[in-house]
C-alpha cells in the first residue's frame, strides 16, 4: 500500500518537474500496478486530463486490445492517488464501479468528498481512504503553488523525491 503511494509520489514529482499540478496515480488489481499516470493538463491543453482520467484511458485501451470486459475489470481496481480525486474524477470512478480509492492529502479546492460528497449521488460507492503519506503529497502541491513564482528552483524537487 505504502509502496504504491510512493510510486504515486514519484509520478507527482515528475508532473511537478513538467510544471503540471503535481498529482500522481496508480491503478492496481490484486496488488499489481496495471496503470500509472500523472496530471497532464498543461501538456494536453485539456483541463480534464487528471492522473486518474489518464489511468482510466490506459485501462480502457488495454481492455479493448485484449477483448476484456472493462466493466468487470474495473470492479477489482484499487486506485492510489496523491491527492483526493476531484468531483469529476470521483464521478468517473463511481461510474466505473471501481472498488477502492486510497489518497494522500485532501483536495480542498475540488475534492469529490471534501468539497462535494459525490458518493451521495451513486447507489454503489467505492471505499474511500485518505491520509496515506499526506505530508509528502501536500509538500509537492505547495512546491507547485510556490513554483508559480518562476524563480523557484526546479531541481530541489528531484532531490526530495529520493528521501
Amino acid at each position, binding site marked *: 500500500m505504502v509502496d504504491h503511494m510512493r510510486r504515486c509520489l514519484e509520478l507527482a514529482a515528475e508532473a511537478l518537474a513538467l510544471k503540471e499540478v503535481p498529482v500522481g496515480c496508480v491503478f492496481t488489481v490484486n496488488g499489481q500496478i496495471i496503470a500509472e499516470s500523472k496530471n497532464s493538463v498543461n501538456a*494536453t491543453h485539456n483541463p480534464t*486530463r487528471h492522473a486518474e482520467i489518464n489511468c482510466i484511458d490506459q485501462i480502457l485501451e488495454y481492455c479493448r486490445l485484449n477483448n476484456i470486459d472493462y466493466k468487470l475489470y474495473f470492479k477489482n481496481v484499487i486506485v492510489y492517488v496523491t491527492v483526493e480525486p476531484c468531483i469529476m474524477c470521483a464521478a468517473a470512478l463511481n461510474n466505473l464501479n471501481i472498488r477502492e480509492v486510497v489518497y494522500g492529502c485532501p483536495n480542498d*479546492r475540488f475534492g469529490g468528498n471534501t468539497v462535494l460528497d459525490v458518493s451521495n449521488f451513486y447507489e454503489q460507492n467505492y471505499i474511500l481512504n485518505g491520509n496515506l503519506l499526506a505530508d509528502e503529497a501536500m509538500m509537492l502541491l505547495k512546491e507547485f503553488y510556490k513554483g508559480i513564482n518562476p524563480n523557484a528552483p526546479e531541481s530541489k524537487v528531484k532531490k526530495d523525491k529520493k528521501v
Partner: protein
Amino acid sequence: MEPPVKRNRIDDSINSITIKNQTGIDNLIDSIINSKNQPQIILGDEYYQTLPLIKVFIGHVKQPKDISKLFEILNDKLPLKHLLHLKRVRKKDILLSPVSFLNSDTQESIQEYIERNIPEIKDCFEYFREATVPLTPPLTRKQYMENLRHWSLNFHPNHYIETIMSDQPFKQSEARNHRIYMALTFEIVKWYFNIKSYEDILQSDFSAAVVVDPTINSVVTLAVDNRHEHPLQHPAMLAIDNVAKTQEGGVWKIDIDDTLKEDLKEKFKIQYGTRSGTAESPYLCTGYYVYLLREPCIMCSMGLVHARAKKIFFSLDTPLGGLKSKTKLQCIESLNHRFEVFTGFL
C-alpha cells in the same frame, strides 16, 4: 451505465403525450428553432424557494408621534442585527425582536423585558403581539412581493437577476442563436443514431455537444456521444478535448464526420472557426458557450467547470445530472469558476 436499449413503443394508447412523443425528429428540430420561448436560467434553490419565516414580537404604538423616538431607542437597545431586510415600522406597528430573543427558561414576556430593560418606552404601547416574518432577505422581486403580506421589507432588486430570471432573458437575436445551436445537437444525434422521433430521443440516452464562441458567433467544435464504446467519452468530455485540439493539444482521436459538418453548415447557416492563434486566443473554454442535448452528468459538469466554460445550455434532464437533477455545481461557492446554466428548449 446501461447500454442503449432501443425499445419498441409499448402501446399505442392515444393521449397528448404519446402524440407529442411521436413528433418526427425534423418537426421537433424545427420547433426548437422557431419556438417563441427563451431558455431559462437554473439558479440555486434559494432563488426559487419560499423564504423561511421566524416569529417576532410586534408592539402596537398608542401615539403615532412617539414612533420616531421609539425607532431610535429600539435601534439602540434592541438592534435587528441579522434582520435588516425587515423594516422596523409598519403603520402603528413596531418590530421589537425575534421571539427566540427572550430567554425561554425565565418565561419572561416581552412586556416584562421592556419594563426591566427599556423602562423609558414601557408606556408607549397599546398591546404586544407575535407575527411571522421572513428570516432571510428576498433575493427576487417575486419573493419580495410574496412576503409583503407578512411585513414591510427592504428590497434592492438585483437588475441582472431580475432580467436573467424573466421570460425574456436574452435579446431576440441572441435567443434565436441559442435555439439554432441547440437544434444542432438534435441534428447530430439524429444523424449518428438513426433517431426518427422525439420518442426515440426519450428512449435513448444519446447526447451531443456544440461549443460556440459567442464573440464571433462561430462553432468551435462539435461532439457526439461515444459513451457506449468508451465510458469517459461523453459529449462534454469529447468537446473539451476537441477544444484542446484547437489549441494545439487534445488526446482522443475521434471527431465528427466531415460530411455531417458540411450538411449542418448548409442547413443551419452556421460557420466554423476559432480565435485560436490570434491575439485573443482563448484559454481552454473561457468565454465559450456549450450546448448539450442532455444535462451533463456530474463528471462532465465538473469537467466544464475545469474548462471554464461561460454558459451551459441543455434540453433534457438526466437522472445523474450535475447542473439540475442531482446537484447544481454552478452554485458551489468554493469552486474557482462558475458558469450560468440554461434549459427549457422543448
